[in-house]
């Protein structure tokens, strides 16, 4: 993993590896640093080791060094969110459709991704952000992959798609043309011929003809040759994929036209106008002439497409790489090494998908592009399972890396969940590990995280999150809230702990808090013995409050005899029995009274101390009740 690999902008793509050095101001020179990897960051601290000459005490701080992630850019966040939406939509495309029905869908999804990239680029462009050049490169590569791999255009259409591709990425022609047209005398503008040639190089012949028309009107003497050129341009055949003409027929027609242009050149028809002669040579696909216009072409792949347009418009996909390699060699300086972008594009022309992905992974500092592109290509069934040493396939590996990166973001972690869901082998494990580390600042956030875990039956994580929330509530003395959390987690041990606190509170203050919760526990009462006792004990109080003394008494007794009440609480219960015993009317039956006494004896004997005064008095009281007399 290349942690220190950054690509700054398009022209910087040549520097694949660039070290980034960060000074940590708070640590003094001469100190030894230790570090530990975190989630997308490094923790750095001063060690105790004292090198010679080092003075002073150590610094007690831990420094977090975080790499400047793109994910913190607000504009790129839109990219992540929108592409997430497209990604989820892609995963849910039905598998059983025949692939010929799916191809247009995949092409449309690819176009969606690209439009999202372009939208971001526009916004970044306005804010003069350098990241725009990376996005430009990404969109260029993606577009080419769409043409070659996803759309998989056959010979004939292939060239047309490549022409579109080039036109889309060479927008400066239109700017120049606008300048020329808006000037007073367009035909005499210094960029005039540049514009005409650029149009022709891109196969935009109608526009070229329109532009030429302006010159023609200015030089009526040369009308003939302008007309001839116009004629040639108008007759250039373009393949129509939807039409009835077959590729062979088109090829024949094209050759005829090509011969006609050649005749014009051989006849020196354009000798009187140097510019028109150049145009003629271009139309013939003359390499040297094309190369003379390197500045207008700009890139070797423009050169490639133009050359194909005028030499071999019926190029087959399998033939592309010959032309690509040779064009690149001809265009680029033999001295300079090809830039990463160039090798990526070349790999694409060679239909080496794995090489494209590999090179992009190295060149870019964010997994977004390779993850989404690979996923789409995988759906198009274009990737053979490329097994890595730990057994997962390439698509899953990239998605996992991307999603893990998202999880380090305080906000975008929610998107990552869906990505993990669609990584069938390791996604769940990754999610289980990561979801517990989401900081739970508010109850609302905890509820959302819980919902994610519960939907995926991650019971351990549910328990752990609920416990965190319950502890927090407990710390703030919100016993009711803590109890609800432990009930939600079905955490018996914790429920017991909290019930104990309730009971302690009761002993201390004499009243209960959170009554409505305890009153309505329902079946959750059975979660833990202590909780059951708490619920039943509260019920006793309610019955007492409603003056249903007989029922209250029965309940109270059963709490002890059925051993629901903890031994430690029996004294309190027995004390609670006293007012019932003191009532004028008889509440406890004889049997019940005996049981009460039995409980008291059990209690005192188990304490193994001589019965204290209170116990004695209680014994006296219980045994002196009239109830025992009436039932005799």
């Amino acid at each position, binding site marked *: 993993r290349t942690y220190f690999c950054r690509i700054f902008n398009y022209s910087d793509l040549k520097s694949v590896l660039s070290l980034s050095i960060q000074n940590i101001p708070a640590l003094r020179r001469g100190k030894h640093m230790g570090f530990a990897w975190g989630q997308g960051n490094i923790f750095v601290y001063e060690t105790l080791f004292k090198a010679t000459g080092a003075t002073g005490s150590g610094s007690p701080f831990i420094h977090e060094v975080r790499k400047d992630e793109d994910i913190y850019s607000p504009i790129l966040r839109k990219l992540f969110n929108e592409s997430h939406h497209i990604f989820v939509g892609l995963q849910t495309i039905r598998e059983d459709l025949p692939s010929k029905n799916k191809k247009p869908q995949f092409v449309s999804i690819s176009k969606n991704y690209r439009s999202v990239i372009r939208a971001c680029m526009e916004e970044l462009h306005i804010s003069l952000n350098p990241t725009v050049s990376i996005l430009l490169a990404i969109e260029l590569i993606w577009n080419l992959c769409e043409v070659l791999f996803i759309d998989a255009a056959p010979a004939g259409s292939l060239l047309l798609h490549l022409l579109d591709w080039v036109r889309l990425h060479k927008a400066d022609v239109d700017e120049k043309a606008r300048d020329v047209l808006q000037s007073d005398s367009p035909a005499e503008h210094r960029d005039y011929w540049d514009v005409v040639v650029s149009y022709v190089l891109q196969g935009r012949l109608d526009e070229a003809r329109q532009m030429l028309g302006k010159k023609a009107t200015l030089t009526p003497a040369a009308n003939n040759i302008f007309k001839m050129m116009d004629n040639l341009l108008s007759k250039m055949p373009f393949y129509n994929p939807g039409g009835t003409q077959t590729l062979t027929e088109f090829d024949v027609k094209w050759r005829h036209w090509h011969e006609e242009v050649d005749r014009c050149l051989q006849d020196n028809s354009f000798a009187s106008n140097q510019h028109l002669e150049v145009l003629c040579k271009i139309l013939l696909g003359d390499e040297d002439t094309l190369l003379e216009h390197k500045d207008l072409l700009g890139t070797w792949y423009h050169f490639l497409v133009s050359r194909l347009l005028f030499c071999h418009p019926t190029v087959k996909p399998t033939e592309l790489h010959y032309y690509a390699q040779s064009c690149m060699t001809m265009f680029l300086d033999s001295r300079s090494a090809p830039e990463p972008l160039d090798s990526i594009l070349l790999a694409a022309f060679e239909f080496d998908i794995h090489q494209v992905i590999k090179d992009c992974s190295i060149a870019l500092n964010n997994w977004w592009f390779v993850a989404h592109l690979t996923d789409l290509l995988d759906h198009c069934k274009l990737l053979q399972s490329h097994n890595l040493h730990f057994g997962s396939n390439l698509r899953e590996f990239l998605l996992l890396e991307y999603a893990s990166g998202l999880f380090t973001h305080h906000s975008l972690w929610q*998107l990552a969940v869906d990505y993990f869901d669609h990584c069938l082998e390791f996604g769940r494990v990754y999610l289980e590990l990561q979801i517990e580390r989401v900081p739970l600042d508010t109850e609302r956030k905890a509820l959302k995280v819980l919902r994610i875990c519960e*939907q995926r039956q991650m019971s351990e994580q549910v328990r752990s999150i609920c416990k965190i929330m319950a502890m927090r509530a407990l710390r*703030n003395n919100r016993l*009711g809230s803590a109890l609800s959390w432990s009930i939600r987690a079905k955490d018996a041990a914790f429920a017991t702990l909290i019930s104990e606190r309730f009971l302690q509170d009761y002993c201390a203050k004499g009243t209960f808090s959170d009554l*409505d919760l305890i009153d*309505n526990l329902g079946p*959750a009462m059975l979660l833990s013995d202590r909780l059951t006792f708490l619920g039943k004990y509260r019920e006793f109080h309610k019955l007492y409050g409603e003056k249903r003394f007989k029922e209250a008494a029965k309940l109270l007794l059963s709490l002890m005899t059925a051993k629901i009440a903890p031994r430690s609480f029996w004294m309190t219960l027995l004390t609670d029995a006293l007012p019932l015993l003191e009532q004028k009317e008889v509440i406890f039956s004889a049997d019940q009274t005996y049981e009460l006494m039995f409980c008291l004896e059990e209690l005192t004997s188990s304490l193994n101390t001589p019965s204290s005064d209170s116990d004695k008095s209680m014994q006296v009281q219980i045994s002196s009740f009239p109830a025992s007399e009436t039932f005799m």
Partner: protein
Amino acid sequence: MENINAKYVSQKISKTRWCPVSYSSLQQPEVFATGSWDNEDNKVSIWSIGNHNNSGLEDGFEGDPQILCEHKHGGDVLDLQFLDQERMVSASSTGAVTIFRYHPNTHTISVLQHWARAHSYPCDNAPCTALVCSSPEIVTVGEDGRIVVFRADQEGAVRVIGEMRTRMLPPHKESSLKLSVVFVRECRQQHNSRGDLPKDHGALKFDLFIIFLYRAPLHCVDRHPNQQHIVATGGQDGMLCVWDVRQGGTPISLMEAHSAEMWEVRFHPTNPDHLFTCSEDGSLLHWETASHSEMPSFLQGGRNSSVISHGALTPAGGNRPLSSAWLCGDSGKGCLETTHMLPSQTMSVNSLDIIGQCLVCGTDGEAIFVNRHVPV
């Protein structure tokens, strides 16, 4: 669904609220406020969907929401309400309550008042979970179990209710109309109680009593705008319940609305036969009760045909029956039409607001959706 556009805003939206428009002007609302959550720097922002000098656009193109201004907000925005056309109040996860003022001329937001520890624990921050305004009073509730009443023009809290933890049950969400306040408590059970706050020369009398209990925690509640005894709630189980507060006990109707928590429920303010709910499962539903068409129901085709309850008279353009169509009880689904308003696979919709024909909602996918032609 064609009229709804997503606007990605680079922040998870927890609340969206239309800026109130004066009813007399019969305008559609154009300005709304949003609050964000789960960011390192949260914000309260004001957006506009009015036409901005784009005279060349056709009618079909709806203006994207454009941000007018924003202001930093400490902590997640857990609730946001407009006090009047210029002031809004926010409840924060740090326990603070803040009044912001929006200046439409300069497009800025300034802080008018800030109560930093409206809700707190002894050693921690307690989030302020909900608030309700009835100018100039603001009533807030928080996780610390207290209800605090502020006045917009006064420094300190006017009245704090709920110090005695044994009597006071920690409420979690409230909505109010005029001076009646309905509380909803979220814990494992729900406790919905009504307290009346009659204004009495500054002294506030407060009674609290339980109306009914529900089996799952509730997150949202709304009151029918005209018939104040009708209350709709939604909670953790995603069920939409309509209650009659006069009767208490069990809900009048119980409908399976969503497959996850329901975050907000809203009656349409002027057309209360329409109800809107939004949920963690990413859907926003538009509920519509019995139609008032004169055609008998069996002649209306389609699976969404509305059935008028046996209790209500079939109006022939006549008076609306006194008992609202919401109380049609067991007819349940038969009385209602439900429409999904958002594209599928959206992330959790946290908040919605509706005025007139304009609906705005915000999601965890960092998107805002605005629909200006809701069929009401």
